């Protein structure tokens, strides 16, 4: 059996301490109560602060339990918050790739489109924020499924000849996505259309969404029918940039 992780045990003790009484506590009080060096206590409290489990009062500098802890049972990241935090990175991805960009999250075994940037050619396009996509047939959805701990694969409707409609094949593809850190769909939902996507990670590496591009297969894929490496790089860089802004380490 693996040993106890000391800093997690200490973090739990700090949370119990803060939850234990009324009123906020200063760093010195926390360190004294747990018999920890001030620097050690500070490191743990800062980390708990970064993930939102504790809050610091601006004037007194003292700590209390954070709102994120109280809402642990509800949605981790509001979808409108996700859009607002990623908008500055989704735009350059559309400009660099020349394709439309979408950001999605899983909602009741569908992909909810939470942000959409038009393909930068100024043709008539319609915003499809709020649309629901099938996870197994889209790059966005497959990336989200790959990192979804609650396993359901959804309804595997075959949209085209290339849709991964068998659980065994799809499960193998999801493992490959986890291995590579990105995913694609090549004419798996619509003939002639391909997509590339990568995960957006929050604190601790938790996947909170996926960002990706989609466009005509001849532009998204190379002569061998594989996603173009430059586009994959652009997508992964955008995903990493959003992740960094959310406090995740990217990947």
């Amino acid at each position, binding site marked *: 059996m693996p040993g106890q992780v000391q800093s997690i045990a200490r973090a739990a003790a700090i949370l119990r301490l803060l939850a234990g009484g009324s009123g906020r506590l200063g760093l010195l009080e926390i360190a004294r109560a747990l018999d920890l060096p001030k620097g050690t206590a500070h490191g743990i409290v800062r980390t708990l602060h970064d993930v939102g489990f504790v809050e610091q009062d601006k004037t007194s500098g003292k700590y209390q339990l954070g709102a994120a802890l109280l809402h642990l049972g509800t949605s981790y990241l*509001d979808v*409108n918050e996700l*859009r607002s935090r990623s908008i500055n990175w989704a*735009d350059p991805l559309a*400009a660099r790739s020349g394709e439309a960009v979408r950001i999605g999250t899983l909602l009741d075994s569908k992909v909810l489109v939470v942000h*959409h940037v038009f393909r930068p050619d100024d043709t008539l396009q319609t*915003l499809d924020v709020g649309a629901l996509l099938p996870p197994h047939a889209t790059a966005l959805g497959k990336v989200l499924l790959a990192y979804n701990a609650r396993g359901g694969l959804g309804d595997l409707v075959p949209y085209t000849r290339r849709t991964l409609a068998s659980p065994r094949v799809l499960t193998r593809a999801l493992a490959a996505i986890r291995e590579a850190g990105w995913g694609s769909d090549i004419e798996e939902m619509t003939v002639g259309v391909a997509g590339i996507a990568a995960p957006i990670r929050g604190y601790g590496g938790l996947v909170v969404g996926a960002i990706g591009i989609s466009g005509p297969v001849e532009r998204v894929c190379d002569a061998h029918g594989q996603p173009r490496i430059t586009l994959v790089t652009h997508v992964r860089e955008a995903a990493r940039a959003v992740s960094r802004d959310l406090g995740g380490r990217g990947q």
Partner: protein
Amino acid sequence: MNGRYVISIDQGTTSTRCIVFDHRGQLVSVDQREHAQHFPRPGWVEHDAMEIWRNVEKVVPRALTRAGIDASQIAAIGIANQRETTVVWDRRTGVPVAPAIVWQDTRTDALVEELARAPGAEEVQRRCGLPLTTYFTGPKLRWLLDNTPGLRKRAERGDVLFGTMESWLIWKLTGEHLTDVTNASRTMLMDLSSLSWHPDSLDFFGIPPAVLPEIRSSAGVFGTLRTVLPGVRLAAALGDQQAALFGQTCFTAGEAKCTYGTGSFLLLNTGTGPVRSQHGLLTTVGYRIEGEPAVYALEGSIAITGSLVQWFRDGLGIISTAPEIETLARTVDDNGGCYIVPAFSGLFAPHWRSEARGVIVGLTSYITKGHLARAVLEATGWQTREVVDAMNADSGLMLRTLKVDGGMTSDNLLMQFLADVLDVPVVRPMVAETVSLGAAYAAGLAVGYWPDLEGLRRNWHRAAQWLPNVDPQWRKTEYDNWQRAVERTFDWIQPH
């Protein structure tokens, strides 16, 4: 053409940012530092100009490091700045003689009332296109001269220099004492037609000409940097809202942009002649490219837009982050008959009612926090509609599309509502940082990094568009309700 990048410094009210842009106008890297806000007395807001300068010295090299480039790859640098904020410094030591007075500062209210009664007040306002308020630079400079011991004497001897934030930074960077037409157009000291300091206006405010910077075009070489990035040309300066107009490529009369931040600023390009407003809008210079005539703009300022969402978050605690307002607003289908008019410190354009205060009307037991969230977002939509109506009436140019930028453009519910109430398409460009981009565009244009305005237009791409999608009768009824709500804010503060 030397260099593969253009950089901009956006010296804003709360922070200073440096952004590196590539030839396609795409953001390559950013660095940013906040500076302290000082509130020494009620109504006073000050910045430390030296702190801001030190932040410039830090953010510029860091933005270059993040982009992995050095000064030899920079074609030019442009400045966009918070407008009207006033600095006076010693010509020899380079040290500010007093804290900078920030545009929001209202310490000059008694002075402004006195000036408004003085002979020549009408003429001064007509000449500069602005109403006499605490907002603009002239009264702030006069206040410094009156209230800093010995300063008037030093000013008359030419020992001290005055500038708005861009002048201060240009002087620190190049050693030249210069401003641009857009910033000069916010001082109340410049003649809008001749684009030069006017002796009668200087007399009216009691400003010695020796302290004034030389007025230059917005896009043109101001000088070469002696520090930070020695050898790089400083080739543009614009007030932040004018920079956003330029960044949105509103180069033709009739094109308009609105920047949605804490407050919101709608600027309409009116072409090469100033349009005098009959409806409470400001007449201002949009930009001037060296060797070309100045382009003018009408400006509608809305005091409270994003800050109403902040109040909902911080003052009422109903939401924990600003974007959650959309989530909450979407829990209901309409406003339930509830309207919020955020006249927190009176109403700006087009009403200019300082005695008005905010109201929430139409409250019934049916109203939930979702309806209130909707009313918060709708307030921004209707306030924009009022300014657009005033602009259409003043300019005779009917707005056909509104280009938007700023933080609130990530709110899809608000953007759709805007299109619905304005009855024109609302378009968001692919670069959200239009203030910085505008300064970079102007600088790049001045040094030939970009060939012409058409070249800049080709960089502009639509990232999102919202089309009007409501019944005209609904629009009419709702606007009527809004206007009746606005009337209920009037005359709240009683004269004493």
